[in-house]
């Protein structure tokens, strides 16, 4: 039914998308294209609809209006399993089952590839091994996840989404609750997945500097609408940050990478985000 006329480019797009919780509209009339093969970062102030958008993209939330398409076919009409083989999601606060070990957790990522009676296959095990190795959690495989440190736990969860073996990865604030080193570790891993394995990544981030460093494409949301989209170097300027985040600042080139770096004005009220 959903045989693709076009080649799989892993391009997610929304058309006049509206998302609501009950009567509260969170995302309204959003037209967006997230380029395939690239790392896209979605940024914006708290409660601007970033996480809601991610839920809408993965069909966890049905649109009140408009559509979400993956390479032209409607995501919300695809069989759930078909979609799960193409698109994985790391929620912001995943629920870790009590006492589950890292490997048992990662194995659950193979769910969309298994049929009801199919035994655990060599391909399944290979995907799990690769996911464990890539995230550096192979030696933690027998540890219960709920006893790991924050960084280790996050890597175990990323391993689960990797074992799902999808070309498209959606990550909801993958660096929250992590210290700087572990934040960079996770982001480096994401970059590696994109360059080595050619995966398309869409992630919600809070840190504008990190978003500019690691993303090819930046989407800035403001009050449920698109404020700007494009390569970070073109999009991120002082006027935009001031308009969206209400923080006076200057934008300077990152001394390491040359990407835009947002430096809030001194003595200005600082945003209480991390």
């Amino acid at each position, binding site marked *: 039914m959903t045989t693709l006329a076009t080649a799989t480019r892993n391009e997610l797009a929304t058309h006049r998308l509206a998302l609501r919780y*009950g009567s*509260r509209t969170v995302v309204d009339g959003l037209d967006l294209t997230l380029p395939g093969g690239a790392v896209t970062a979605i940024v914006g102030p*708290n*409660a601007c609809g970033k996480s809601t958008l991610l839920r809408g993209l993965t069909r966890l939330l049905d649109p009140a209006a408009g559509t979400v398409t993956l390479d032209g076919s409607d995501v919300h009409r695809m069989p759930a399993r078909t979609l799960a083989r193409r698109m994985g999601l790391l929620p912001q606060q995943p629920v870790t089952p009590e006492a589950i070990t890292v490997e048992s957790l990662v194995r659950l990522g193979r769910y969309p590839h298994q049929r009801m009676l199919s035994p655990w296959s060599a391909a399944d095990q290979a995907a799990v091994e690769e996911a464990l190795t890539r995230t550096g959690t192979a030696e933690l495989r027998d540890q219960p996840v709920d006893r790991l440190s924050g960084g280790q736990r996050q890597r175990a969860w990323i391993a689960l989404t990797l074992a799902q073996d999808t070309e498209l990865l959606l990550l909801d604030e993958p660096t929250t609750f992590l210290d700087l080193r572990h934040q960079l570790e996770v982001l480096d891993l994401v970059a590696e997945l994109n360059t080595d394995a050619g995966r398309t990544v869409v992630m919600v981030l809070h840190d504008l500097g990190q978003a500019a460093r690691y993303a090819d494409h930046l989407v800035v949301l403001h009050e449920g609408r698109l404020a700007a989209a494009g390569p970070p170097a073109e999009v991120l300027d002082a006027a935009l940050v001031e308009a969206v985040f209400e923080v006076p600042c200057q934008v300077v080139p990152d001394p390491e990478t040359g990407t835009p770096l947002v430096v809030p004005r001194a003595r200005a009220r600082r945003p*209480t*985000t991390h």
Partner: protein
Amino acid sequence: MLRNDLPASTAPAQRSLTVRQSLLPAVGLCVLVLCIALSLALGSRPLPLSTVLDALLGSGAGHGRDADADVVTGLRVPRTIIGLVVGAALGVAGAVAQGITRNPLASPTTLGINAGASFAVVTAIYALHLTRPVEYVWFAIAGAAATALAAQAMARRAGDLDPTRLALGGTVLAAVLTSWTSALMLTSRRTLDEARFWLAGSLAGRGLDVLTPVLPLIVLGLALAFAVAPALNALALGDESAQALGVPVTRIRVLGGLAVVLLAAGAVAVAGPVAFVGLAAPHLVRLVLGPDHRRLLPGCLIAGPILLLAADVLGRVVVRPSELEVGIVTAFLGAPLLAVLARRAAR
């Protein structure tokens, strides 16, 4: 940061909540007074309110104390007072039980208290051939206290009181004791016949003398409950956050547990195991006043008696001239109420 995450639309909701909070105690008290009036006026023999007032004020003395006045002062006044006390105790006990276990299903029942009291009373009926509620009181108190303390002892470990274990331990003990109670009743027809009425939970046929031994327990329990109320708010955030806020988690849980035991033991000793008031009252109050225990407990102090008295009055009216035991009515009434609450909570 949390504040920033709240969508702007909560502001009006917040306001309407405060309006509610200032109005509702008054409304609640009015309803309670209404329930008291009905409880005095209605029964297998309905009396006009004027007769009730006359009887209460003793102004009917002109034509001598008649049968109506005897009904009011001799039967309905004690019954209403007992209903007030038991309802208040059950409501507050439920709120504290839910607070210390952080489990919305907790109630005096889950902590094993009703089962303990029931078992002790049924054993007394079985072995000692007791027949009057006033004789059951001390057995009920002892059974309730012993069970609840045992449940707490099992949940303690290295000085820590684990709420899941507390609820589980209480439920397990309750299951054991309930099965023993059934076994006793099935071995002795006489016990079954006596005990089944007490086990249904009732306010009828008791004089104020039943209340005398339990009143100190209930007063102490209420005092303890109100003392730990602010700490229960911290406990709701999780043990670690509570500890960080300087709340002695284990001590609060032990004291709270003690309050639940005192209140619930007192209530069950007087009225038998009345289910549901302890479970439903806190949910009802939480829905209108929010989760703050400093408001929740006073709210339950009013809501518990309202529920119990209303149920008792209803039980006297629906099958006149006979009557339904209040425990049966509370369960019947509470069921749809809880369903509605769940539905509203889903919105």
